[in-house]
């Protein structure tokens, strides 16, 4: 057993896929010197044609990768800052992800967009702290958010092998995580499969990315009062709706904790689908960033925007009280009023 870090897991996945398939190569800023550590050691091992240091030209580089993919290669692009993915949203959502359909199935665009520090990092301010995965899911771009080192390895491998564009959001809050792993534990994780981190029978908490850890802490804190099932979707698009439905068939109660903004965030889609199609005994709840969240720099302002454990614990206790027979007037009010 070794303690494997999340970043090291990404590094091992890249190395393994580059070793396995000569079509795989990495593009990005500062990748030669591995600023993020994700490409550590890979330049010396694979050379400048496969660890390509790019100028600061994210739009050009993103479409460069699309073109290379359509001509048979399998690029992985590393982006250092979450919002860079919005700078290249045209290139990903309007181009790379549309060529399969626009070409009537002729084109394959196997590009992986790797964001090795998505979302919140204390003190990074307004422009570098976003978590835009919901937008990619909204546009039908395959989107994964691994919470753990073993999933970081397994989902990055599957993303690289996939024949469509895949965005891999590695939450900044997960990067420090380490996991005890045996050598055989590093295996591909299929896209679209959720994982139950903790089995419970009273309420299902869907937690995305680093919030899985918070959900597990809360589940432990409340275990004398309520049995919480922690469901990590791992892939946001395509989502494991069957896995969620199975969990809800048992618990009938749903809470989603999601680092998106509230309006049109991933939590909204999960709640809506559950309400439309699944077994619910009580109104579901979500814990997200506020609408249109822009993080102020001061730590107090920054943290005030983050979904947190207290909010989750409160929501669990509220949802447990709610039930099918409760009249609408008796329903709990908004958690964040």
């Amino acid at each position: 057993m070794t303690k494997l870090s999340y970043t090291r897991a990404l590094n091992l996945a890249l190395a393994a896929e580059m070793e396995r398939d000569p079509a795989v190569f990495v593009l990005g800023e500062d990748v030669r010197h591995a600023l993020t550590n994700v490409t550590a050691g890979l330049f010396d091992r694979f050379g400048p044609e496969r660890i390509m240091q790019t100028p600061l030209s994210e739009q050009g580089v993103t479409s460069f990768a699309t073109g290379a993919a359509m001509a048979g290669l399998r690029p992985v692009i590393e982006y250092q800052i979450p919002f860079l993915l919005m700078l290249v949203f045209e290139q990903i959502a309007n181009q790379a992800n549309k060529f399969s359909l626009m070409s009537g199935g002729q084109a394959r665009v196997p590009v992986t967009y790797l964001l090795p520090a998505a979302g919140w990092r204390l003190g990074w301010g307004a422009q570098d702290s976003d978590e835009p995965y919901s937008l990619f899911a909204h546009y039908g771009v395959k989107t994964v958010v691994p919470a753990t080192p073993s999933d970081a390895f397994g989902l990055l491998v599957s993303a690289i092998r996939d024949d469509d564009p895949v965005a891999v959001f590695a939450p900044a809050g997960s990067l420090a995580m380490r996991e005890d792993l045996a050598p055989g534990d590093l295996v591909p994780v299929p896209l679209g499969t959720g994982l139950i981190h903790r089995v419970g029978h009273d309420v299902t908490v869907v937690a995305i990315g680093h919030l899985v850890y918070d959900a597990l802490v809360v589940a432990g804190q409340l275990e004398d009062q309520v049995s919480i099932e922690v469901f990590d979707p791992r892939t946001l698009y395509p989502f494991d709706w069957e896995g969620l439905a199975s969990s809800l068939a048992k618990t009938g109660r749903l809470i989603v904790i999601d680092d998106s903004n509230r309006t049109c965030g991933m939590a909204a889609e999960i709640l809506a689908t559950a309400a439309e199609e699944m077994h619910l005994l009580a109104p579901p709840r979500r814990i997200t960033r506020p609408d249109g969240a822009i993080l102020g720099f001061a730590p107090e302002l920054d943290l005030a925007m983050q979904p947190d454990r207290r909010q989750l614990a409160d929501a669990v206790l509220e949802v447990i009280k709610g039930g099918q027979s409760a009249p609408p007037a008796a329903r709990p009010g908004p958690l964040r009023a």
Partner: protein
Amino acid sequence: MTNTPSADGRAPRPEDFYRTMRLIRRFEERAMDLIRSGEIISGIHPCIGQEAVAAGTGAVLRHDDLMLANHRAHGQLLAKGCEPGRLLAELAGRTTGIARGRGGSFHPSDFSVGVLGSTGSVGHGAPLAVGAGWALARAAGDRVAVSVFGDGAVNQGALLESFNLAALWRVPVVFVCENNLYATTLPVAASVAGSITGRAEAFGIPAESVDGMDPELVYAAIVRGVARARAGQGPTFLEFRTYRFEGHHTFETKTRLRYRDPEEVAGWRARDPLTLQAGRIPEGLRERIDAGVEATVEAAVRFALAGPKPGLADARKYLYASGVPARPGVAARPREERTPR
């Protein structure tokens, strides 16, 4: 199907250029008939007047060279060897089209002749072509990539970024700028500071400005650019000065925009590239070519209109290369509410 004479090692003859240009002209004229009759919905961006650029380019490229085109691409596709019937079927939204009716006139692609796609986002095909060219350079052989765009594209940041990448990494790519003097209604004089070729020169890319109304001059320039790329000497930028005789889009026949001086249009029409090239071949040969093209185009129309329209159930087919299903827009009802059938 059409002439790609250099592909078999033979230098193209004047009649080869003429045949390709005549095919493009008649193809688009017939497509416009089909728009009027409602067989093609929405419309097209006609390239009538610009046929010499396509004919000169297509005569140099092989089917295994890769092209990224733009929204005004019928000419380039036909000149690269795309079957007219399958292209017209695509315009008419038939499953027998090159992209099974999914791309239409706006986003045609035909991998069988090396046309990877056509982006509607102006100028954004250039970085795609640079990436494709880089992939070709990494593979064995001497294949090249070609990026086709108009004057409107030269002010796009992504295109300029791609010039930098192509020059930096010596990518075998030829940038073909069809400068028809207008980005929709915006004249070049009001949109381009400096010069068009100066943009490429700023990145150290050899650039030429060439008369785009003469297919033989276009051909000679493309030969130079492609030779550089095949020899591993990196990118070339070629501006072809040309003119579209029709509107930006066929909807202009309804909007009656007045952004071009009629005298200017007449002046360019007097330089019709088909007339120029027809003058270079014997009359009898020209008539035989015209008759052959007419038969080809009418066969294309018949093929296109005979093709089946896609079934509604197939609307989400091809969304993903991996075949992963997408959910429909209407949710299934909760199980307990479903009535048994």
